[in-house]
């Protein structure tokens, strides 16, 4: 059992699938009963706007964090990063089902990934574990993993400032709230269960179950004496479905091909000239074209049906294999991207532009260096352990 609690946030599935709801509630309830974790529930992470109460809640959390959601872990991680919920990548065994030799699995992969892309910025020294709830339908699987992680992080790896206390922000309903800064409330260790909640209709953040103080300073955790239900959904109620790209900065090289290609003003750059998904909601629902043109597959559309575009990294065997469909007659990624973009342009009452716009770099980047690298790759196919 955990020596101290770990903070867990469950991101609900979009829609009202009862099986998924049941899994979420089972995990939440059992974690609370066992006293393993401080658990809170937010609506589907990807759909949260930056000023949504659920996102503000996430931003207020300090220390190591486990986020469970119905998205690939990469998608969870970089959605959080885009919203300022930053941390180093904690590796869960649940995301590594394929290779069961677990010895090396507890090291963050940050360094490996960051060496290829421009990397995230302003990353605090804490771990965020992103876990895909599609891994397994059995809540016990997640409970065990979270208990393991709680034990793992109970050896203090880092000590952040802020006194370490999990704080409940006072945030009124779905309103624009308080700038993401947690306001002390309910962090008194008493916990104030909200029994009015039914899982979908909670309209205020009236409570997570909190069986004591959160972050290693308590010693006062008590078994709950009240009947447990799963926690209220922070900023719950109906959340509008959204569609926008999410950049994986561990891969992104800041090449700017996406900003050149997108004609809908989704992308921008920050004060350091780093590429940024600036206007998320300018994106056209269902269109993943920029992801296809990205040379390093750094652009994730978490809801896309193709695992590679949705942020898959592990998962089914097929995800590791080369998809040769394009070679065997399918439209190329670029052709498909151009087609998809043209469809959205026409739908907007604009003229289709074909491949004439936004692809100059791609059409001229036939350099020798690239050829050498790829030549080696081809010759090394046999040695790839897939």
């Amino acid at each position, binding site marked *: 059992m955990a020596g101290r609690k770990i903070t867990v946030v469950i991101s609900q599935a979009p829609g009202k699938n009862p099986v998924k709801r049941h899994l979420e509630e089972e995990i939440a309830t059992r974690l609370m009963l066992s006293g393993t974790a401080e658990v809170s529930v937010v609506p589907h992470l990807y759909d949260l706007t930056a000023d949504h109460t659920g996102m503000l809640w996430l931003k207020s959390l300090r220390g190591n964090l486990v986020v469970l959601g119905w998205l690939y872990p990469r998608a969870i991680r970089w959605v959080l990063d885009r919203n300022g919920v930053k941390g180093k990548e904690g590796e869960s065994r649940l995301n590594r089902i394929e290779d069961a030799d677990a010895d090396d699995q507890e090291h963050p992969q940050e360094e490996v990934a960051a060496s*290829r892309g421009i990397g995230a910025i302003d990353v605090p020294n804490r771990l965020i574990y992103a876990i895909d709830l599609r891994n397994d339908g059995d809540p016990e699987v997640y409970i065990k993993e979270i208990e393991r992680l709680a034990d793992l992080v109970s050896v203090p790896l880092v000590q952040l400032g802020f006194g370490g206390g999990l704080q409940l922000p006072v945030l009124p309903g779905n309103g624009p709230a308080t700038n993401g800064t947690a306001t002390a409330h309910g962090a008194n260790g008493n916990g104030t269960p909200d029994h009015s909640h039914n899982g979908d209709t909670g309209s205020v953040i009236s409570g997570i179950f909190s069986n004591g103080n959160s972050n290693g300073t308590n010693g006062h955790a008590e078994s709950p004496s009240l009947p447990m239900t799963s926690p209220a959904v922070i900023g719950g109620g109906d959340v509008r479905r959204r569609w926008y790209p999410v950049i994986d900065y561990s891969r992104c090289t800041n090449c700017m091909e996406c900003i050149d290609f997108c004609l809908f003003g989704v992308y921008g750059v920050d004060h350091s000239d780093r590429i940024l998904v600036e206007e998320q909601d300018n994106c056209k629902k269902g269109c993943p074209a920029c992801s296809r043109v990205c040379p390093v597959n750094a652009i994730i559309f978490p809801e896309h049906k193709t695992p*590679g575009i949705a942020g898959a990294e592990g998962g089914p065997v097929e995800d590791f294999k*080369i998809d*040769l469909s394009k070679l*065997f007659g399918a439209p190329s990624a670029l052709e498909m991207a151009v087609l998809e973009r043209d469809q959205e342009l026409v739908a907007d009452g604009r003229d289709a532009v074909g491949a004439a716009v936004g692809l100059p770099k791609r059409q001229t980047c036939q350099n020798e260096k690239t050829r050498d690298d790829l030549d080696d790759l*081809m010759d090394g196919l046999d040695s790839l352990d*897939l």
Partner: protein
Amino acid sequence: MSEPLVFMMGKFEARIPVDRMYFESHFWAVPHGDALRVGFTAYAVRLLQDVYFLDWQIDPDTQVRKKQTIGEIESSKAVSTMYAPADGRVIQFNEALLNDPSLINADNYDKGWLYEFSTTQPLLSPDEYVKVLEAGWEQTQRLLKNQFNE
């Protein structure tokens, strides 16, 4: 019999026999009765490597359009949807492959044929196909790199 053409995939020699015609989507075609027998070229097999699974999604004797999905293939290194190489008719499939798709690896230019096909569309000569390979090699490598990201 004339020597096959050779296209170098890195250090791998992909043989392109000159006794048949080709589709740009990496299939060869050789007359067989009133139809064409179609199979993967050495270039395609090199990319696929060991074929584990082959599944056709249309019935024999089906009219198809170019790029229409007709099946799926999975190998040790790759998966792919299979598309019709041209407008035409898929007449029958090679039943032997359904039991043992490894024939594609063992004998891709003969016993490993995929299906019989009829089309009125023009095909490529061996020389023309090699030119297609040369023109597409950069893109093929990029495709592989994008998907591996290693």
